[in-house]
């Protein structure tokens, strides 16, 4: 029998159905792998007892023929999702030992489908980062290394722990969130699949808020089919989130094998940015050739406001963050640092509890919303957001079904390599992904090849609002053409 941790979610489900192994065996194999991989720092809390109890319950349901769609399949949960009775920190000191008395809607949906929780997974503090280096628990180390080098690389961020865990086979799949690229960029860096669904597809209830008009949950998985299975369970209407769409979730798994014959794929000329490495350009070209060979038509399109998406994002996201993070005041939950009076207590608590990147963004957000600057910054950025969305609407109205772009401007970089002097250097990682959040559209990153040093590279597909199905179908064609990714052999223990 092959190692149970090498299976995809779909293969593991089949194995359970055929009784080739039990949910307990599958879960134990993953718990063992997690315990041996602490050097990667992917998990911030392991929950083996809970995992085994959930696995036993799954085995009982499997035996009775009452299995849910994800019955007995062990997954990891980004520590941004609140989990009842299990410490949830957003990887920030300010939440301290916060232990929610409630369960986020997305994770509740997953448990209802039968999934098993292995533990809570590392991420950037409050999901603010592109390398998982801002976490209060320290950086996540990617299981990937450059050929012939043992330098530690980042797995991307903010869902870096999720991407590292899946590519190191420490979970069959993991939950993640994406505000500016935090699912798709780490997926691209680790040879995994990551989908950010349309804004409103997944409930945000019980997920620690960063920028409420941009945040969306989604999965990181080993295959497009697995991503379809995970999103199917995670998505759906929720009365507790007023921005969650009251729309039925289509059969995503059925869409995976639909093919791309007759589809028109837009190639936006503005994504051909100055200084783009030749191998990214070649990968993009390769993706177009694969889709053309499968029967799709490539259409050159223009999204003229693309270059303004990232700067507009760095006004909108910090502004919303400064408002959302006002709740961390040392009164209702989390850390409290004593002070002379109440204001002193607030200021000391927030100085001690927030890391550098979070402070920076809260302060930028406070500035752009402050009296006298609101119109010049925030209002202007929201107008530009309207223009960015209009660009996409015009492309889709002209008959484009999906848009193909590179997922990231480079492969993974080293820990400590970027952004120490100038924060903008790190922000540029999200240049191809952030437009999608600004327009509320769905986007998927699919592994499509490797750079000269053997590191994975991804391609991104952007869909029409609420048309994740076309992304699964198109992503599957790229995945099939590129071939299954061989994940790194465990050098970590």
């Amino acid at each position, binding site marked *: 029998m092959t190692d149970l941790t090498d299976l995809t979610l779909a293969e593991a489900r089949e194995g359970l159905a055929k009784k080739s192994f039990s949910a307990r065996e599958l879960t134990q194999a993953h718990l063992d792998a997690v315990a041996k991989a602490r050097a990667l720092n992917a998990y911030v809390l392991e929950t083996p007892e809970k995992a085994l109890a959930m696995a036993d319950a799954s085995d009982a349901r499997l035996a009775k023929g009452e299995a849910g769609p994800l019955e007995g399949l062990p997954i990891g949960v980004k520590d941004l999702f609140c989990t009842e009775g299990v410490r949830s920190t957003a990887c920030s000191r300010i939440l301290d030992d*916060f*232990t929610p*008395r*409630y369960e986020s809607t997305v994770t509740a949906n997953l448990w209802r489908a039968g999934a098993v929780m292995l533990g809570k997974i590392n991420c950037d503090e409050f999901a603010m980062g592109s390398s998982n280096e801002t976490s209060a628990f320290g950086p996540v180390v990617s299981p990937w290394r450059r050929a012939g080098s043992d330098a530690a690389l980042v797995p991307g961020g903010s869902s870096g722990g999720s991407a590292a865990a899946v590519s190191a086979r420490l979970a069959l799949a993991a939950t993640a969130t994406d505000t500016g690229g935090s699912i798709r960029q780490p997926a691209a860096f680790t040879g995994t699949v990551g989908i950010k669904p349309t*804004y*409103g597809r997944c409930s945000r209830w019980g997920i620690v808020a960063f920028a409420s*008009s941009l945040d969306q949950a989604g999965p990181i998985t080993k295959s497009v089919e697995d991503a379809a299975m995970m999103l199917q369970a995670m998505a759906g209407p929720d*009365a507790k989130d007023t*921005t969650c*769409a009251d729309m039925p979730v289509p059969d995503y798994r059925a869409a995976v094998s639909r093919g791309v014959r007759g589809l028109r794929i837009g190639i936006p000329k503005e994504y051909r940015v100055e200084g783009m490495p030749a191998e990214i350009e070649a990968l993009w070209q390769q993706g177009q050739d694969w889709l053309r060979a499968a029967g799709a038509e490539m259409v050159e399109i223009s999204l003229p406001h693309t*270059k*303004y998406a990232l*700067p*507009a994002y*760095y*006004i909108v996201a910090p502004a919303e963050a400064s408002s959302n993070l*006002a709740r961390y005041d040392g*009164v*209702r*939950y*989390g*850390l*409290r640092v*004593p*002070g*002379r*009076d*109440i*204001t*002193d207590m*607030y*200021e000391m608590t*927030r*100085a001690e509890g*927030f890391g550098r990147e979070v*402070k*920076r963004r*809260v*302060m*930028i957000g*406070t*500035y752009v919303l402050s009296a006298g600057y609101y119109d*010049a*910054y925030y*209002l*202007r*950025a*929201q*107008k*530009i*957001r*309207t*223009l960015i*969305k209009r660009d996409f609407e015009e492309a889709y109205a002209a008959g484009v079904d999906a848009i193909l772009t590179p997922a990231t401007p480079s492969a993974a970089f080293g820990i400590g390599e970027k952004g120490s002097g*100038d*924060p*903008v250097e790190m922000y540029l990682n999200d240049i191809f992904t952030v437009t999608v959040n600004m*327009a*509320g559209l769905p986007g998927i990153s699919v592994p499509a090849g490797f750079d000269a040093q053997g590191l994975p590279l991804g391609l991104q597909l952007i869909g029409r*609002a609420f048309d994740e199905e076309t992304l699964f179908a198109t992503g599957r064609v790229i995945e099939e053409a590129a071939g299954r990714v061989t994940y790194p052999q465990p050098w970590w223990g």
Partner: protein
Amino acid sequence: MSVDTDTVRRIARLARIRVTDEDVPHLQGELNAILAFVEQLSEVDVEGVEPMTSVTPMRIKTREDGVADGDKADDIVANAPVTEDHFFVVPKVVE
């Protein structure tokens, strides 16, 4: 636009984050790097463009104004650093 050290201190006060004298120069540098980066937005013609208020064309859901939940005082104070009889305790506010 760029910020001076007094503005950095003023923003920190508004954000309720204590900064030390040593923090101010590097924060000033980082904030100005971000402000310089977003400066390019001023070249976009936004005349007559509506600011975005909702990213998807949806109507905010409404519900009946009734009690849907309650009786959870234990849960609500469970994670607070200091409490007394279901109250959050804070430093003295009124003299």
